[in-house]
């Protein structure tokens, strides 16, 4: 089971990275970040089968951080939308100079 889980986790992580690189909608980019976090969670759980239950505890913490990140990130997206009336990342180039 370990090798298969690592395989699926790698594929899922890569899907997330490709999504972050190809999409411009801030919310979808954000969802792809969640996808990457979950891929890493799968790795943790898979390794907890051979290294003990510490991996599962770590997944617990990752989920907490992901929840906090979702709350703050979505608040940022709402603030962005208020100022720019869009969540398209192409129109958000204030730091480009």
């Amino acid at each position: 089971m370990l090798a298969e889980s690592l395989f699926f986790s790698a594929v899922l992580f890569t899907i997330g990275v490709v999504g972050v690189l190809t999409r411009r909608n801030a919310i979808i980019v954000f969802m792809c970040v969640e996808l990457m976090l979950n891929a890493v969670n799968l790795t943790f759980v898979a390794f907890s089968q051979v290294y003990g239950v510490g991996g599962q505890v770590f997944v617990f913490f990752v989920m907490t951080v992901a929840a906090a990140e979702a709350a703050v990130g979505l608040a940022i997206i709402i603030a962005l939308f208020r100022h720019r009336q869009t969540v398209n990342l192409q129109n958000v180039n204030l730091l480009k100079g």
Partner: protein
Amino acid sequence: MSSFLFWIFASLMLIFGAAVIINRNPVASALSLVVSFLGLAALFMSLDAFFIGIIQVLVYAGAIMVVFLFVIMLLNLGHPSEIADARGRGWKLVAGAVGIALLAQIFALTRAHVTPRIEPGYLARQIEYTGVVAPVAGPLFKEYLLAFEVTSVLLLAAIVGAVVLGGRRAPTDAG
């Protein structure tokens, strides 16, 4: 769980994970992500992590995705002018190259030899003796107690940050 179901749920997870980045409509993307998370929860359970699988469904597929859908709905992102958001061909090529390179790297890393610290089936037997929650709860409140407490501070900071960022500015502010 049998290996057949493992592959079914894994392919469910990957197919709907790909649907997240392929779908043009953010609502469809979010719902695909929910299905992907449910498949992932099934994988967690097949790896003897029942508690993690359950909080995956409750916290991720439930709470976090509801917040996502709520924001999509609030900002009215299903609107046609927002839908065409994929980047151009150059970006897609770059993303494909990065994806293939990353996949190759991770595969090379995961082929490394793993020496097990615990004997196979140890977690399953522990769950049989003490129940599903106890194997996770024990270390969480013993070895990782400090991290657990720090997590509460993190959550408080996140709540305050979300309220400050998302809350209304002064009444005179047009935004």
